[in-house]
Every structure is written in structure tokens, then in C-alpha cells.
């Protein structure tokens, strides 16, 4: 016996709308079984992962802090994914954005450089991420190299480069040999929105990016170009949209936004450069983009939901002694469930018994 996927003739809009919810429930059930197999109570885990963070004001703020880079990166990725181009390397573009922007913070450290430092850092972050994103785009259009492989492999290059900088040339000489740079000056630190709040200006940037993207995708010829390239590439060429230019543009945009997320995180949250500056935001953002159906508002909601798993994961590590890897595993399960749910909305499973074709 084997399975076949056959396209459904009609796709129910209700099923399409409920698919992410179904995916979520399924992912929780699978994770529950895993936790149960590890000898912990799935119900206690659900409490720690979901209920506690949502009932505590500190956690709610933290939720927005963690959702900020996810939103910025996922909104950028939505440009790529709409055009059926696969930038899997946002994590690397995020790191290079942090390196570019961080360079200026370190160069101006200890000087009384003015208010221009922070905007220039942010701009450098965008440029760094965009340039790094353009590498797989260039390799694809010039040599036909698969962008999934190159963008993914460049993540490791970026991470090791940051590792080298933090341990080598950019290490704080007075830092007791810890692999860290100096702490950024106040002029190079992204301020909080309100006094005493953990939420910084990055959240505003993310919201602005979401609004602008909603306008671009829904109202401009460029947005239509991406949709047409994704849905009917031959028609896109017929419409005069060069696929090379589209590839370069979306990789630059998604790389730029990932780079912005990187410098925002470093200057708003971490305050210095160190070997690890991300719990995998660049990869998790792929889940967020799909969970949000590549729709800007959907991504806003999905980023908040997925940020929950980061906070829950940290608490679960402390309270239930569950490894942090489980969080990443859960995010992976979630992505698979989302893709499966989407597939099942458009296709149905048919069981074919052997010899049944006769």
C-alpha cells in the first residue's frame, strides 16, 4: 500500500484559514509525546511554555523583544518566498549586519561622537546584510548555483567570522579574556521606547517594515511582480519583469532587513559583540514567514506566537530541566506541521493498495 497526493478540485476557504491553527495543535501534540517520552509531564510543560509567559507582564514585554527580530527577518523573507526564491541564509545576513554596524560602534568607542552614530550603525547593518544576501543571488543568476545551498552555507561563514572577530581583533583587552567586545557607548545603544521598559526602538522599526511591506505587496507593481514571478514565471518574463533583477532585489531586501535585525539586536539588547548573538532567529523566521502565510499581518501574529516558544523554552530549561534544544526541535516540528497543513488544504491523501490499479 502506498499514499498518493491528489489535488482537491475545490479548496475550502475555511480550511485554508484554520490550517495554521490545526498545525499548531498538531505540533503541540507531537511535542507533548516527546516530552512525555522524556519522562516529564506534558501538561506541566504546556503550562510553562504557554500559560505562564502569557500571564506575566515581564514576559509579555519579553515576548515583543523576542518577536522583533523575527518580524524584521520574516517580513524580508516574505519578499523572497513570494517570488519562489529561497533565501535560507537570513541567519548569516543577520550576523553580518551586526558585524557591519558593530564595527562603527567599536570605532567610535570612547570618542564623543554625536547622535549620528546610531543611525549610521543601523544603515551599515542594512547595507551589510543586503550585500551578504546578494552573494547567493549573484551566484544564482551568474552561474546557476542553487541559492538554498549557498545562502545556507554562508551562514556558517558569517558565524565563524563573528566568532573570529570576538575572540581576536575585536576582543575587549580588559575583558578578562572573555570572547567579547567592549560594551557599546550610550551613543551606540538603541534606546528603550519608555523609561524602564525592555522594549526598544527595534519594535517600531519592525512595525514600520510591516506597514510598508503591506503597501508594497498589495498596491505596487513591484509587489505584483513578485507574485507573478512566484505564480507564473513565464508570464512574469512576458510582462517584462526580468527574473535576474527580481532575484537581486528580493535578496537585497531580505538581507537588508535581516542585517537591520542583527544590528538592532546587538545595539538594543546585547550591547556588545560576542560569538553568539542569536538563538537561531534567522532560521525560525522561515517558520514565522510561512506560519504567517507570507502576509504582513499574518507575520506579525506568527512572530508573537513563535516568540512564545523562545521564552517558554528558557523557562522550561530552568523549571523542568528540559534542554534548550527541545525549543529548536519544537520550532522544526511546527514548520513541518504548517507545511503539511497547507499541503492538505490543497491536496487529499489517497491510499493505493497494491494491484489496485488493475
Amino acid at each position: 500500500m502506498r499514499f498518493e497526493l491528489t489535488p482537491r478540485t475545490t479548496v475550502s476557504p475555511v480550511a485554508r484559514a484554520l490550517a495554521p491553527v490545526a498545525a499548531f495543535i498538531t505540533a503541540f501534540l507531537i511535542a507533548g509525546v516527546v516530552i512525555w517520552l522524556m519522562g516529564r509531564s506534558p501538561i506541566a510543560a504546556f503550562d510553562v511554555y504557554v500559560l505562564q509567559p502569557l500571564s506575566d507582564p515581564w514576559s509579555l514585554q519579553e515576548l515583543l523583544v523576542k518577536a522583533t527580530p523575527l518580524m524584521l527577518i520574516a517580513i524580508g523573507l516574505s519578499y523572497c518566498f513570494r517570488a519562489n526564491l529561497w533565501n535560507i541564509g537570513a541567519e548569516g545576513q543577520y550576523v553580518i549586519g551586526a558585524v557591519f554596524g558593530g564595527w562603527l560602534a567599536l570605532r567610535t568607542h570612547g570618542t564623543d561622537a554625536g547622535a549620528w552614530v546610531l543611525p549610521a550603525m543601523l544603515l551599515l547593518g542594512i547595507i551589510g546584510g543586503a550585500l551578504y544576501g546578494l552573494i547567493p543571488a549573484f551566484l544564482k543568476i551568474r552561474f546557476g548555483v542553487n541559492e538554498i545551498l549557498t545562502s545556507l552555507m554562508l551562514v556558517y561563514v558569517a558565524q565563524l567570522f563573528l566568532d573570529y572577530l570576538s575572540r581576536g581583533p575585536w576582543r575587549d583587552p580588559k575583558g578578562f579574556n572573555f570572547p567579547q567586545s567592549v560594551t557599546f557607548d550610550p551613543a551606540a545603544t538603541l534606546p528603550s521606547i519608555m523609561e524602564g521598559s525592555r522594549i526598544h526602538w527595534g519594535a517600531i522599526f519592525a512595525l514600520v517594515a510591516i506597514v510598508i511591506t503591506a503597501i508594497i505587496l498589495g498596491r505596487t507593481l513591484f509587489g505584483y511582480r513578485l507574485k507573478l514571478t512566484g505564480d507564473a514565471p513565464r508570464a512574469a518574463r512576458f510582462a517584462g519583469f526580468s527574473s535576474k533583477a527580481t532575484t537581486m532585489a528580493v535578496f537585497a531586501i531580505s538581507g537588508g532587513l535581516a542585517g537591520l535585525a542583527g544590528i538592532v539586536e546587538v545595539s538594543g539588547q546585547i550591547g556588545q559583540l560576542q560569538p553568539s548573538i542569536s538563538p537561531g532567529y534567522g532560521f525560525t523566521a522561515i517558520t514565522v514567514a510561512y506560519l504567517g502565510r507570507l502576509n504582513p499581518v499574518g507575520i506579525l501574529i506568527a512572530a508573537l506566537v513563535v516568540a512564545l516558544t523562545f521564552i517558554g523554552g528558557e523557562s522550561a530549561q530552568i523549571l523542568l530541566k528540559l534542554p534548550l534544544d527541545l525549543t529548536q526541535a519544537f520550532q522544526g516540528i511546527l514548520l513541518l506541521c504548517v507545511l503539511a497543513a497547507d499541503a492538505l488544504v490543497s491536496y487529499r491523501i489517497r491510499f493505493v493498495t497494491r494491484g489496485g490499479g488493475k
Partner: protein
Amino acid sequence: MKEDVSPSGPPFVELKGISKRYGDLLANDGIDLAIAPGEIHALLGENGAGKSTLVKILYGVIEPSAGEIRWEGRPVTIGSPVEARALGLGMVFQHFSLFDEMTVAENIAVALSDEWDLAMVRSRLSEISRTYGLALDADRAVWTLSAGERQRIEIVRCLLQNPRLLILDEPTSVLTPQEAEHLFKTLDKLSAEGCSILYISHKLEEVRRLCRRATILRAGRVVATIDPRAISAREIAALMVGNEVGEIRSDAPHAPQGEVLRVNHLNMPPAGLHGVALKDINFVARAGEIVGIAGVAGNGQSELFAALSGERLADRADTVTIAGRACGTIGIDTRRRLSAAFVPEERLGHAAAPTHRLSENTLISHAATEVSRSGFILLNAAKRLARTIIKSFDVRTPEGDPQARKLSGGNLQKFVIGREIIRKPKLLIVDQPTWGVDAGAARLIRQALVDLAREGSAVVVVSQDLDELFEVADQMAVIHQGSLSPLKPIRAWTREAVGLEMLGVAQAQGGAHAV
């Protein structure tokens, strides 16, 4: 003309009164066909004559609306290709279905039932390769092979299942002459062993080399069953394209005005394995006239369309001149802004995005249409334009602004042609304007093309439908293997002359050395 050449023995396979109806279109109309054991039987006809429909019925891909298939005298229903194969039918398609990254043996194994393992495939493969002279290395990856070698895989795949009737659809279209000769030897051997072969082609020389009987289809009907060696190429061409003279419009001949399109020594390499190179194409289209380009599909029409539209760029600017501007090296947007408009052959996926609404599909020709301003989409203007097209061109839609794929072929074609005509372009280039379209829509579309030309535009119609070209064109040329015959006034063409050009035998009979 019915020159009956009956086979000697009882037929092995017999089709009786096969008909297939698609809406208004009768693709097959009471077709009778009999193939004797061991016979190589040719099926000849223009594109659209109903050859593929007939073969698909025989191979169980589509169900006939009426008629009967007899296999060794016994009536059978063939519900699917699996059933066809179980009966002993093998089919070699024109386009290969092979996995490039896999080896020859793996490609054969995936197509067979589960009882076959790779070792068995390997041993049978070498046996068949030896017997039929089909040299194949079982462990080579398919992407390293030539077209001829790939076709051998397809043939071996069929032979492994011991077929008793082998169908080949235009098998030599991708082969070199040497590879083709090799194929013919294999087919002769198979035939001598008693395997019947149905050979679909429009190349006369091949059919004469291989077959003693040929069935000629035209417009879904059998027009004759003949011995291709006994009658002349001229007669066969006449049978294929029909004898009746096209209905020429009675309106007074008009004086064509200035030159709108000039194609000048246009050469272009093929785009891929199945592509055709364009060889030194020259012609001119003037305002007020329709230029028809006839030819059997796959002779360079889509390549010519891509070169004229700017989807593929030439290496010299002066190869294509539109409205006085040399634009062989500039893209489709700029050509549209020069008031040129294009309608490709493929409606879904090329002329229109299937899952997009009609209003969104107006954006495809945005370069010359008022549906955007400084990069922003004018949603209401797009919707208004879609409504106007729907109304002016009688597009029947299931709802106000449906997705393109919800429309029938004829209605979508009216929409995509309407989208271009409605802005009164100075030049319209359209590839197969009424392909697969019902009679009513076809009439409306042809009328719209004629009206556009009468209002002073130049129109280029690339079509396989000779009746259509005789009806609308003022000037016509024939494309064959990427070369274009001289452009002549429509009255100077006889159907026979067109048929000979389409078969590529015109030059041969003219005495020059033909390839």
C-alpha cells in the same frame, strides 16, 4: 479521393468509428483504422488534425465519445495507460519523461512494476541492446546523453514489456539524420518479428522509407488510406491540407501603408533540447495588412515569437525594427511602448497567470496600459479595463472578476487578445490565435484581427491553421525548421504549394540540394 489499400491478413488492432467531442469541437470524427500484425502504419496529418487525440484514446489517456477498439478481433475498453500496457501497447512520446540525475538502468526500473529489480533490468537491457542495436550504457547518468540516446531509453523501456503494438509520436523530431536512420533499422527489425507499429509523423520522406500504408487525417476525419510510396509528395500534401480553395474576403484590396515591422537577417540559436534555431529570417509587415506565418508546430514558431516580442534578445539591434526603431536587443517593455502588442500561444502561464484575477492579469501588459502610475497599481483602473475587455470581446465569465483559470479556453483567449487589441496597437503579433478555441470564439477573434488591420495596424498571425490564414492573411510565408519561405500575397499561394513548403520538400523539388 479514397485509395483503399487493404492489408493482407486480419487486422491486429482495429479502430471503428472513433469519435471524440470537446464541447463544440469534434477532435475525432468517426475514425476507422486497422493495423495488421507486423505492419508499420503511418498516421499523417497537420497539427490539429486529431492525431494526438486518436493516439491518446488508443493508449487509454482519454476516453472516446463513441466508437470501438478491437484487439485481435475482440472488443476492448482501454481505461488507462496501465491497462494499455497490460494489453501489450507501448508508447514512445515526443517529449521524454526521464530523470536527468539518474542512470539509464534506474530510469528504466522506475517505470516498471515492482517485480523488476535493478539486476534484472540490467541483464534484459544488455540483451535488448544487443538484439536491436540500441547501444546504451546502463550506468551512465541521463544528463550526459544525447537526444538520440535518451530516446533509446524510452524505446527500451517499452520493449522490456514485450509490446505487440508500439506507438511512436514524431520520434525523429529531436534526432540527427544518422540517429534517425538507426531508429528506422530498429523499427524494421521489430516489424519483421511481428510487432505492429503506429508511426506518427509529418515528414514524408520518413514515412515513405518505413511504411507501406498511411492513414491521413484532416480536421478529425480520415481523408484517405494510401500507399505512401505509390503516390507523389504533391498528392499527399494536397490530401493533408485539403483541396478546397480558401474563402477569400470580397472587400476591395487595400493599399498597405508604411512599414511597421522589419525582420532583417534574424538568426537565433535553439533555446533548449527541443528548440529550433532561427535561420536568416527576413520579412516586412506594413500598416493595414495581416501577415500570416504558416507551418507545422515545432518548426520555430515559438522561437520566432520570442524573438519578435523581445522575450529573447538577438545579438544585433537591426534584426528587428519596430516603428522605425531598431530593437533587436531591447526588451518587451520598450517594444510595448513603441505600440507593439503580443499574444503568445500558451494562454495559461504565459499570456495570463492562472490563479490571478482578470483585473490583475491586465497588469501583465502594464508597460503600455494605464493600470499603474509611478509604480503604484491603479486597482480601479485595472478592474475597469478588465470589465471593458469582457464587454467588448464577449468574454463569458462565471463571476465578475474571476481567476483566469476559471475561464474556458475560448473565453480566456478572447480576453488575452482583447487586452492587447483594446489599446489599438500599431503592431500586433499573435501566435496561434485560435488554437483549441471553439468555433464561435475563433470567428470573433479572426474578425477582431481583420478589423484591427483595417484600422491601420500591422498584424502578424503565426498559425498552424491554414484555413484561418487563407481567411485573414494578406501576405503569407511558411516556416520550416527555422527558415522562412519568401513572403507572397495570399492569392499567389496554392494549398499544394503551402503543403510542400510545410513538408520541407519545396526546395528539394525545385532542384536545389535539400538537406
